[in-house]
């Protein structure tokens, strides 16, 4: 009986360690593990109305998202991980898979976002300027990039924390978008 007691710490270690390895493998395999599940999932998008960024004449408001399945992507020219996902967003745009709406978050200067987009390409249907985190806080964002999949009725169906990678796209986002498009 006593001998058995001494094995307990080892057992705990194996269970905790095993769980950690499993989680790491899932992250490595591109499976989206939501660190903090958004409370906004399956709820309507928060109302917002953002001004256009420099060089565009239309901003972006919550009304623009109704009637189609969309991706809302929060980015910033200062954000390294956003640059990492950018080529993939361009591919989505080129293949016309789903419209991407951008929230340009916390740019230090008015022209920082537009310059960045001119350099790396602009995959966004509409872009709103969010220098004071108005929309970011409304969406419960903690860091960039974050992306939301919004259905035809303006209900948030999925939140992707961190870059959209080809793996996440294939395994989760694209199947979900196709599912939502079914009448």
């Amino acid at each position: 009986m006593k001998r058995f007691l001494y094995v307990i710490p080892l057992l705990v270690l194996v269970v905790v360690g095993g769980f950690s390895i499993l989680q790491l493998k899932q992250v490595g395999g591109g499976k989206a593990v939501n660190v903090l599940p958004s409370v906004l999932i399956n709820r309507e998008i928060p109302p917002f109305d953002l001004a256009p960024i420099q060089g565009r004449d239309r901003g972006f408001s919550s009304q623009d998202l109704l009637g189609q399945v969309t991706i809302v992507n929060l980015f910033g020219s200062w954000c390294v991980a956003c640059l990492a996902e950018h080529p993939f967003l361009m591919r989505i745009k080129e293949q016309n898979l789903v419209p991407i709406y951008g929230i340009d978050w916390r740019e230090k200067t008015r022209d920082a976002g537009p310059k960045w987009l001119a350099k790396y390409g602009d995959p966004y249907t509409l872009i709103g300027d969010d220098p004071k985190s108005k929309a970011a806080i409304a969406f419960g964002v903690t860091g960039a990039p974050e992306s939301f999949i919004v259905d035809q009725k303006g209900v948030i169906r999925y939140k992707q924390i961190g870059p959209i990678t080809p793996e996440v796209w294939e395994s989760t986002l694209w199947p979900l978008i196709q599912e939502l498009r079914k009448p």
Partner: protein
Amino acid sequence: MIRKLVLALTLMTVPLSVQAVEPNEVLRDPGLEMRAREVGKELRCVVCQNQSIDDSNSELAGDMRVLVRERITAGDSNQQVIDYMVDRYGDYVLLDPPFKAQTLVLWGGPGVIAAFGLLWVVMLFRRRTKADGTQEVVSGAKVDPLSDKERRRLNKLLKEDNA
């Protein structure tokens, strides 16, 4: 000399509570500003995670402070402002999370662990001395007290050792 050293060491252990609220964020009305501070203390900075938004220098915390002030100025009660944030970030945004089904492990966990520890200690002490006076050693075998014959032999051996 010693006094100065003691003072210096004592000061080192004083937690430095630094307010990150920027001067240009402060509201003109001191009453409203006081309420904004009360709300700010309860909200977690979602970037740095273990600071309130009032203590954090992160930009997002700064924007949250401004938002708190805007809503308070617009006539929201403290609770309404906090509810607004919880509505978007979940209970996670509260530095003092409420007790409910989802936070049961958080609140109950330490108690359960402490209870197990206590149980273990009690078991340990109860096993040390059994009611019949016999003692149990680590191997788990029961050992009877020394018989008279054994005691005499032990004394003899000890004497030989001393000699």
